[in-house]
């Protein structure tokens, strides 16, 4: 499926966004969002538009991941300077709702070893579920650092009742081509999920947190 956003338009938009952001330095690292306006889509009748997509470059560099690991994974986490907790540490929380909530707030995401993930409901109750921080599975078949990279590179999107969707695809500290790649990947993936693909897209913009929107389509 050919993209309706030409390479030139994309690069112009991205560089425009980065320039505007560089002109007015902010006290925080601005997020870059992709905003999609939809058309010919009825949220009441059509299939829900939501899911996750893995980007090429990490959009949120400051994302904090905690490993809930078995012995092997805890050792590996320690060796790689990644924060971790073992089963004993989780048991100490004693299923206390306040403590579990605090734990959930302390990290952006969790990864848990197979043996530990099955015990989460017993050890912690549904606190992580409610916070939207239930751990992803960390198996021994894959590299821990690789999985952490994957978690940091994956973004969620969910369309609610209005016909527009906003997705964080990067930040203003990224290089132009990296940001462009993330934007391009997101556009192509999201459009591929729409029933009529490009016929369901009314507009596309990218925008930094404090900057003006740059129209791409």
């Amino acid at each position, binding site marked *: *499926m*050919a993209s309706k956003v030409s390479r030139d338009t994309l690069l112009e938009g991205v560089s425009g966004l980065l320039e505007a952001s560089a002109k007015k330095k902010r006290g925080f690292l601005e997020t870059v969002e992709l905003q999609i306006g939809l058309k010919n889509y009825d949220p*009441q*009748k059509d*299939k*829900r*538009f*939501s*899911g*996750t*997509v893995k980007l090429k470059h990490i959009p949120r560099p400051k994302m904090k991941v905690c490993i809930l690991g078995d012995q092997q994974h805890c050792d590996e986490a320690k060796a790689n300077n990644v924060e971790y907790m073992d089963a004993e540490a989780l048991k100490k929380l004693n*299923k206390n709702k306040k403590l579990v909530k605090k734990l959930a707030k302390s990290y952006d995401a969790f990864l848990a070893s*197979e043996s530990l*993930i*099955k015990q*989460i*409901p017993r050890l912690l*109750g*549904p*606190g992580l*579920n*409610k*916070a*939207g921080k*239930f*751990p*992803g*599975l960390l198996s021994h078949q894959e590299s821990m650092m690789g999985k952490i990279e994957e978690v940091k590179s*994956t973004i*969620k999107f*969910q369309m609610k009742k209005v016909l527009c969707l906003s997705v964080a695809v990067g930040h203003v500290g990224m290089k132009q081509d990296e940001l462009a790649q993330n934007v391009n990947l997101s556009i192509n993936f999201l*459009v*591929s*999920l729409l*029933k*009529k*693909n*490009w*016929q369901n897209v009314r507009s596309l913009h990218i925008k930094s947190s404090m900057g003006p929107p740059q129209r791409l389509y």
Partner: protein
Amino acid sequence: MANNFNKFRQDAVKRELPNSDDEEEAAQLAEDGDICENVVTEFPFQFNLKDEVAISLQQDYVLSLGADTLFTRLAVGLSNNAVQIHDINPAGSSISNHYNLMDNGEGSKVSICGLRFLDDTPNLLLVGSTDGPVRLFDLRTSAEQARYEYKTQSFDVPESITSFDSNANGRIICCGTEQYMSNTFLLFFDVRTRKQMGAFFESHEKDVTSVRFHKSNPDLLCSGSVDGLINIFDIKEPDEDEALQNTINTESSVYRLNWHKNVYEKDIISCITSTNDFKSYECGEGDEVASFERPEIVTGIRRKNPANFNLINAHNMTDNSIFLLAGTNHKEGEILRSVGVMKNKLQPLANFTGNKQIVRDSLFDAKRNILFTGGECGFITLWTSDTVPETIKTSGKMKVKTKSNKRTPY
């Protein structure tokens, strides 16, 4: 010279520009196709359209189908909150005699989010509407027998529900809601007393999209959400903390859940994600059994373009093997095929000829190998085949039973 140019300019203004939507449609059609030489040889089982009924002549979609245990009655739910009841003839070859059980509200912003026959008879039907109530109808009188709706007491419960199910012994109904004021609910009702029994609200962060009770264990329930979690509950326990048996993180967004059994009769839960992937898990431990992403399933049904793909449902055959029903979106979704799910691969199973719509729900009568589909053009379709797949063997060979066409000699 100037006159010619002006004339040219005037003519150009009068000429109608090609409609960009038409161009795009044509471009899209050119980009998809089969990746196999011969669909008939690639898919061992050919299903043909045996019967078809146009439910809606407006723009309404068939979103929900329900049938009784013996497939004698078909309930059809529409995107405008209307419900129709049809009879399926004893031979399983035609649908007829429909009547309207529930009419649409004019300009209704409400749709049907589930249909369930309450017990083994074809008489008691539960109808869920997205504005909240689940209604129980006795089809012998078409009268509403009961209405299950949450009345808030201590906290704000959203008025809308997204899905519901009734349990194996027909005593409990569970409704899943959207996220509302930082809470997402699973609401429980006692069928007989009509009273609300309580709610769970700690196990999901985002909208619930699927609620499924186990087919025979009345206490076992699974729920799926946009947050990617599948929660498994034993509702013998009244406390949510104790009831939550297991949480499985699909790391995606759940669209539809189904219960299955593996060869050892262990419970399996399958999930179709909102991004058209398929994953299945062992219920007890939560271990992943199978996982196929959208491109793999697209190849499985022998099509080229993942951007033109609609994963509809996962069904059980009589020997517990699972097949996926999948189709396309362009050209009104004409492609409809199924693939058998093996441990590490998908096997082309059936091709359905004559489909005219994007299919949104399906029912499979495993005993008689009949498929019912409903979708966005407002049709319900009954599909049958002359050669019937009984089982998908791991060796890749299919056991085929041919319906006997022998004419009796006299």
